[in-house]
C-alpha cells in the first residue's frame, strides 16, 4: 500500500517536472533576448536535476545522485560562462 502511494507520488512529481521543463523550453525558444534564453537554460538544468533525483528515488538507487551533482555543477559553469559572454563578448580574455 505504502509502496503504491510512493510510486504514484513519484510519477506525479515526474509529470509536474516534465511540465516545468516544457514551460522553460518555451521561454528558451521565444526569447526575446539572449539573457532570457540563458535564464531558461539555467531553469532547465535545475528541473533536469530534480527529475534525475526523482528517478533515482523511484529506482531506489543512489547512483543517480552523482548524475544530479554533475548536472548541477555543469549548470553553474555554463550559466556563469554565458553571463560572462553576454557581459564582455568573450569568455576567456
Amino acid at each position, binding site marked *: 500500500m505504502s*509502496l503504491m502511494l510512493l510510486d504514484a507520488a*513519484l510519477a506525479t512529481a515526474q509529470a509536474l517536472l516534465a511540465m516545468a521543463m516544457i514551460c522553460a523550453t518555451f521561454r528558451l525558444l521565444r526569447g526575446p533576448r539572449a539573457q532570457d534564453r540563458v535564464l531558461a537554460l*539555467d531553469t532547465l538544468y535545475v528541473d533536469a536535476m530534480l527529475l534525475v*533525483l526523482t528517478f533515482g*528515488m523511484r529506482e531506489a538507487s543512489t547512483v543517480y545522485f552523482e548524475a544530479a551533482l554533475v548536472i548541477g555543477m555543469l549548470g553553474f559553469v555554463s550559466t556563469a560562462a554565458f553571463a560572462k559572454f553576454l557581459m564582455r563578448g568573450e569568455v576567456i580574455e
Partner: protein
Amino acid sequence: MTHAATLPPLLAVLVALLVVLGAALALIGSVGLLRLKTFYERIHPPTMGTTLGLGLTLIASMLLFSTLESRPVLHEIVIAVFMAVTTPVTFMLLVRAALHRDRAVGDNPVAGRK
C-alpha cells in the same frame, strides 16, 4: 519499483508529500518564467525551484534512502550546499550582464518606471 516492503506507511506519506510539493514548486517557478513580462521580473520565479523545490526533494531523498539502507544517508547535503552557494552568484552575474546590455542599447530599466 524495487523498494523493500518494510517501508513504514507514515514515512511513505511524508516522502510522497515532500516530493510532490517540491516538484509543484519547480513547476510554479517555470510557469512564472514563462508568464511574467520583463526580464527583471522573470529572474525571480526560477529561484523557487532552486531553493525550496530542490530542498524538499533532497529532504525526501534523504529520508527514503536512510530508511531503505537503515543508516543515515546524508550526501544530498552536498547538492543543497552547492546550489545555495552558486545560484545567487550566477543570477547576479546574469542580471549585471543584462543591465549592461540594456544600457548599451540606450535603455535604462532601473532609472524609474512609469
